[in-house]
Each structure stands twice: as structure tokens, then as C-alpha cells.
């Protein structure tokens, strides 16, 4: 029986829709932002934070918690929405997103709290930190698992490959990389700039157990996490294929790094998501 069968998928889908609604409401006031990534990654965040990871919002510094590193630190609307809904802080705080003085900055940083495991706005650095934590956990005999959400564009940074090589060489089976494969970087589609394909072959040759999943299928993601958990002697790599703008029909597939988000577009997105929640 697959792991996802144990979960109430319908409930998770409702959570993901709620997170998407937060994304829309958080970005709308500033009229632009990381809407497309947030909507696209909502299912990854739901599966990881609500289904897979072992953590205690009441005790965010719990030593044996699983760690989640968001290395694309700009994908904050969905990140903060997830933390709020998961109970790390009051969701009312989400209304301060990107306002002067708010700790909910456009790029997440650890001044927000311990649930930001490392400050990663400079792309390409987070995986190394997670590898270091995973190695320390091995030496200390800790059971924690280390999850890293990477961007596909971010994987062009050389440091990613240095860290991946070491993770593979050390067989860090407490480490699980998830690439949010939305096929967009700042300039546009990945292959317009520099292809990182064949990505799965690369990761496999670096010593990773590789899974290729629909990153907008919560059940498939949960199954992949459980395979990763049971894989011994190797780190895991999950290529999560996501659709930018997922869940809002007018935005699905618009491949923009930053989206203008005028009021009429935000209003129709909100209406669509609210209708889905009510159904």
C-alpha cells in the first residue's frame, strides 16, 4: 500500500488551496511578486510541512526536528503562508508581508525565527549548510531528516554540485533534495539561458537515489518522501515537476519569474480559489 493512501488527500488539497489563497492575498497589495512560484510550489509545501516532516510548531527549536531549508529564499509568500497555517505564528502576521519593518521580508532570513534554518537569499548556498547539518546529525546519532527545496535555476550555481558530490560520496541518506522544477529562472525559460538537463542522470551519477514526480500531485510527493525515508546509504533527489501559477486558471503556465499582479487579476484569482475552498 502506498504511503499516500494513509493520508487524507482531500484534506491536504484543501490546505494547499488555502495556502494559494494566502499567496494571492499577500502579493496583491504590492502589485507584483513571486506569485507564480508560490502557486506552483503549494503542493510541495503542503506535502512536506503537513504530511512528511516531523516538527513541533510549539517548540520550533526542538533538537530532533526535521529541518527544511528553502534555498530559493525569494519564494516567501508560499513559505510564510505555510509556516502560518502550520502554526509557527499567527496568520494575521501575513498581512505585513514585504512592508517596511516587517520580518516577513521578500527574501526570508533567520531574523524571522528558528524555522528559517539558514539565510539563503544568495542562491546556491543552502545545500551546503544542509549537508553540514546532515553530517553532524550522523556523527551525533540524531534521527532528524534534512530536506532542501532548491530552484532549478539555482542549480546552475557551482556550489550546488560541490555539495551534491560530497552528499553522494558520504552516502547521506538523511538528506533529501527536492528541486522545484518549474523550468523558469530570472531571464525566462531555463533552456533559453542554460539547460541543466539531463538532470536526473546527473544526480544519479553523483550518487543520489532519483525520483521524478508530478510536483503538483500531493499523493505522489508523499509517496516519494516515504521512498526517500526508506532509502539507505544514499541521499535522495526528487525532481518535482511543477506548473507555474498552478491552481489559478488564468495564471497557469505563465512562465514569468516576477509577476505583475494588478488588482483585477488578483481579484479573479481570489474568487477562483475561494470558490474551490467552498466546494
Amino acid at each position, binding site marked *: 500500500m502506498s504511503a499516500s493512501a494513509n493520508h487524507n488527500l482531500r484534506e491536504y488539497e484543501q490546505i494547499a488551496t488555502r495556502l494559494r489563497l494566502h499567496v494571492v492575498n499577500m502579493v496583491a497589495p504590492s502589485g507584483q511578486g513571486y506569485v507564480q512560484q508560490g502557486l506552483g510550489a503549494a503542493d510541495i509545501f503542503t506535502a512536506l510541512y503537513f504530511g512528511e516532516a516531523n516538527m513541533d510548531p510549539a517548540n520550533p527549536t526542538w533538537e530532533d526536528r526535521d529541518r527544511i531549508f528553502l534555498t530559493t529564499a525569494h519564494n516567501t509568500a508560499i513559505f510564510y503562508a505555510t509556516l502560518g497555517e502550520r502554526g509557527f505564528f499567527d496568520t494575521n502576521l501575513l498581512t505585513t508581508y514585504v512592508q517596511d519593518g516587517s520580518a516577513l521580508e*521578500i527574501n526570508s532570513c533567520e531574523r524571522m525565527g528558528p524555522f528559517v534554518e539558514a539565510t539563503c537569499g544568495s*542562491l546556491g548556498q543552502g545545500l551546503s549548510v544542509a549537508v553540514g547539518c546532515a553530517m553532524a546529525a550522523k556523527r551525533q546519532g540524531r534521527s532528524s531528516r534534512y530536506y532542501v527545496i532548491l530552484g532549478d535555476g539555482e542549480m546552475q*550555481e557551482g556550489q550546488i554540485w560541490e555539495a551534491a558530490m560530497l552528499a553522494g560520496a558520504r552516502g547521506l541518506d538523511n538528506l533529501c533534495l527536492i528541486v522545484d522544477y518549474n523550468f523558469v529562472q530570472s531571464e525566462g525559460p531555463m533552456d533559453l539561458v542554460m539547460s541543466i538537463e539531463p538532470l536526473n542522470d546527473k544526480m544519479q551519477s553523483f550518487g543520489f537515489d532519483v525520483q521524478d514526480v508530478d510536483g503538483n500531485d500531493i499523493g505522489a510527493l508523499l509517496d516519494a518522501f516515504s521512498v526517500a525515508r526508506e532509502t539507505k546509504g544514499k541521499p535522495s533527489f526528487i525532481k518535482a515537476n511543477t506548473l507555474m501559477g498552478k491552481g489559478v486558471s488564468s495564471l497557469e503556465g505563465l512562465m514569468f519569474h516576477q509577476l505583475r499582479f494588478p488588482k483585477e487579476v488578483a481579484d479573479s484569482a481570489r474568487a477562483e480559489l475561494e470558490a474551490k475552498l467552498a466546494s
Partner: protein
Amino acid sequence: MSETLSKLEAADFINRTFKPLPRSYGDALIDAALKNARIVCLSADLTPPTETDRFRDELPDRFHNVGIAEANMIGIAGGMARSGEIPFVHSFCAFVTKRCLDQITMQAAYPNLPVKIVGFLPGVATILGVSHQAIEDVALMRSVPNMMVLEPSGPQYHAAAVQLALEHDGPVYLRMKRPEKITEDPITQLPLAYGKGVVQRAGNDVTIIAAGLEVVEALGAAELLSHEGIDAAVVDMHTIKPIDRDLILERASATGAIVTAENHNVIGGLGSAVAEVLADAGIGLPFKRVGVQDHFCEGGSTDYLLKKFGLDSSAIAIACRELMKRKT
């Protein structure tokens, strides 16, 4: 609505108006490239935010987006420069300096190659937060042998800065800020002389030596002070290295008090450079450095950050008043 949707791409967080901002730097680079066939343009996946999108579109065979890989970009530029090209490499200040300091020193500066390192988002002035704020970059670049460091005070000097960067036959760090709004009048480009600071305002009581966006703040401070009978001069020190030693010494003897103002940590940047000139000449005088006081910052709107971190005209005016008291 479909018409709206086709226009939903936003270039970056700098441009919040969605009307095209002037590209003083980008246009100047194209003009220079049309005159000098050796110039090539490199981007590490930050093309519109570094004003190089026109270059990409109009001179595609001389433009390379090398991916999100800044350290690699510097090495590539070193190779191109060894092969006769003049590469202008682009990213945000934080990524194009701090992240690749070793590559800059060994592959651009030691071989003294004409690699022109161009950064945007100087200092604290960005909403993008601590990871994107460069408050150490001037200190780092200034300490690299052979490196020239330029920080023009506004888009009206960006074309001149490109010329100065080309005049220096070696590596250059060009630190710039894009305008945040569209100005009513077209920007008229003004000249700059190699290694010569510009006296933007004359004054006899105290001299404010500033660079980059702090020049405007310094002029604001001088205006505030003029209502209190304090006559402050403002120097635009667009070239931080090699610094205009003669002008600093002349200002020291003319006003007997110096305030520096920089959008950077107070350690190692413009303030340090001016202090070094004064100390080397054996001059002691009332002196104060306005800048980030050796702490990390946070993201926000520019006005908010300048006020919060003591970089605005009122902070500069306070420093000047203090020195006036120490003078007597």
C-alpha cells in the same frame, strides 16, 4: 483581461511603476560597444535588472548570459580578457564581488586584465534584504591591487563612469544604483574627470565627502545646515580608488572639518579611504563617518532604510553640527 495577462511580466523590484525606466548605464554601454568592438557583455541571469536587456537584444553575438554562476562568470571574463575582449560583467553588487573575490583577485586583478565588474543594488538600498545588500563590497574591492573603484552619484554620470572604466586599462568595479522612478525631464549626461572628485556645493565651514546616493543626501544636509548659518561643502567622490588626495587635503585646510557619507559599512569604504589620506598626511581634524555602523541590515524601501540606518540627510546634518562644536 487577456490583454492584461500578456503584460504581466515584471522585470524586477526596482521598477515599481511598470513604465520603462531610463537605462543610462545600459545605453552608455551600447554606445561604447558600437565604438569599441572589443567590448562584450556578460550577465549571470540578471539582465533587465542590470540594464543589459537592450545589449542582449541589439548585440546578441556579444552578449552572454552564463547562468546563475557569478564566480564562473568572473573566470570566463578573465579568459575573454586574455583573448583580447573587454568584458563588462553584471550582477547585483553583493553577488558580483563578495561571492567571487578569489576569482576577481586571481583571474582579473593579478593579471591586470580589463575586466569591468558592474554591480547594481549598492549598500542597503534594496527591498531584497540582507542577502542582497552589499555593505562590504567597496572595502573588498578597494583592497584588491590594480582595481579601480567607481561609484557615480546618479544616472546622469553613468555614461561618464563607463568612459572612466574604459580609460583605466585594468580591472574596475563600477557600483551603481538604478533610479527608482521616472523623472519628468530626460537625463542629461554630465562628464567626470579621471581621479578628480566633483565639488557639488561650495562651503567654508565643513566638507561632506560623499559617494553614490549619499551625494544627494549630503546636498540635502548642506541645505538644512545653511538655514542654521553653517556653510557646508559637498564633494562627490565618484572615484573611490584612486582617490582624489589633493582635493581631500585642500578641503581639510579650507574647512578644518570633514564628514564622510557612504551607503556602506563605515569600515573599509569611502570614510576609511579619506581617513587614510588625512592620517598619511599627518592631519588631525574633527572628522566623522556617516554610514552603516558595523551591523547587518534588513530590506525595505530606500527612504525607510536610509532613515533607519542613519544614512539620510538629517543624520549627515547631525554629524556636521557635532563637528562644528568640536571645531571651536
